[in-house]
């Protein structure tokens, strides 16, 4: 029987925990205030009053590191409220922006560092509606990445009176927000009644996981993510899908890329380009590839400035041999 660790206390976590049990797995629910959740009599569901710190290992043989001890499991589902460590603690997540009826007074829409195109369009449409209601709207942007439909939105928002600022720095003092405009260097003080921001950084994975890496997927193989505040029926289907994927037997493991530390110049290229965040710098400042995350695509082997990374089975010599053989073959 496979064990799935589920992090979170909300209805999402409990729904997916039940689903895991229903589909024949064993669920370990990590939840700080386990009020009202009884352990299942047949021991198939256990509740631990602690929270998830880290995950190790590859699908099928993972370890969920929690505040009080490790839990061996075959996969992990993260179902707690998305860690919306917002820029300002009291910001309102973009998703829950009130439709049209913003507060009277001033709203700051902080779109720096994300959201993705969809989120940006949603924010601008809300801004236009709020402006129509007489709310004053200030939009903070990194750069105006707009083309086609979005461009119209930006112009509409501007014509409706939104003030766009590309801030160099934003400081907060109590109710006052000082924004230094990057063009003129002037400091603009705003007293917002609401600050709306979206911390969903431009993830290649859509909310429902990456289209190529499978639904509910995250960067970490074997770790799935269930979105928060879903509607009733949406939650049921997502929970069912999450449990099914979590309980599926793990695919065979690709052989990860290997780093020759003697050749590594610590130039960080591999760390930057790895789509799976598998490359990182170890304590002695040399690159290392995390075997659990590496999907063996070989990008780092090609890009490494010092040719320090080799992908077993696809090294330069392997490729040469295959090329020569293929050319002489057919």
């Amino acid at each position: 029987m496979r064990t799935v660790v589920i992090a979170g206390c909300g209805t999402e976590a409990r729904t997916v925990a039940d689903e895991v049990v229903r589909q024949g797995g064993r669920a370990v629910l990590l939840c700080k205030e386990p009020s009202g959740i009884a352990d299942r009599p047949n021991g198939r569901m256990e509740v631990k009053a602690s929270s998830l710190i880290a995950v190790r290992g590859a699908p099928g043989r993972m370890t969920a590191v929690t505040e009080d001890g490790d839990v061996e499991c075959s996969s992990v589902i993260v179902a707690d409220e998305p860690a919306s460590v917002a820029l300002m603690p009291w910001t309102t997540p973009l998703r829950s922006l009130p439709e049209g009826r913003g507060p009277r007074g001033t709203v700051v829409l902080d779109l720096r560092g994300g959201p993705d195109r969809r989120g940006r369009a949603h924010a601008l449409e809300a801004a236009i509606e709020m402006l129509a209601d007489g709310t004053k709207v200030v939009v903070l942007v990194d750069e105006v990445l707009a083309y086609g439909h979005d461009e119209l939105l930006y112009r509409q928002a501007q014509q409706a009176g939104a003030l766009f600022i590309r801030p160099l720095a934003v400081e907060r003092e109590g109710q006052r927000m000082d924004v230094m405009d990057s063009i003129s260097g002037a400091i603009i003080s705003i007293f917002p009644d609401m600050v709306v921001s979206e911390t969903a950084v431009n993830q290649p994975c859509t909310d429902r996981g990456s289209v190529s890496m499978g639904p509910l997927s995250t960067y970490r193989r074997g770790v799935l993510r269930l979105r928060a505040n879903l509607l009733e029926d949406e939650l049921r289907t997502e929970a069912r899908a999450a449990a099914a994927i979590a309980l599926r037997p793990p695919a065979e493991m690709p052989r990860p890329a290997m780093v020759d530390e003697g050749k590594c110049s610590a130039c960080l290229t591999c760390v930057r380009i790895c789509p799976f965040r598998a490359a990182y710098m170890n304590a002695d400042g040399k690159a290392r590839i995390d075997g659990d995350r590496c999907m063996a695509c070989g990008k780092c082997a090609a890009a490494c400035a010092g040719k320090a990374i080799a992908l077993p089975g696809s090294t330069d010599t392997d490729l040469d041999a295959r090329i020569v053989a293929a050319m002489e073959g057919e």
Partner: protein
Amino acid sequence: MNKVVTLICSAALGALELAKENDIVITDTAVVEVPCSGRVDEATILRTLRQGAQAVLVVGCLASNCRFSTGNFEAHRNVDEAKRILEEIGLSPSRVEMVEVSSAQYMKLVEAMEMMADRAGELGPIRLLEGDP
């Protein structure tokens, strides 16, 4: 001896199987599988030409749904680099090309292979020192 080498990523290989199922015969092009098109760097392309290939085709997945999400961008940059190098040493950059297919677009792949075969025919072999025909 095959005139064209096709370095094809494992996902796009499906398109090749589909072509074979539709009994399309692929002539005088050698197919080499790589884990992802992003694995192909400029040196590999140049070495392939030096092994006697007259043209090299790199096949990657469609831009948005590469199984490894950004492999084909790396491949594009490396193919462009190889083309620049060929130009600088006086050889025709059109000997190297990249194409993106989904595993369903077998016709697009076959056409690309035929195009490269034509180019190989036109450009002829690179006058090679060892075993130059």
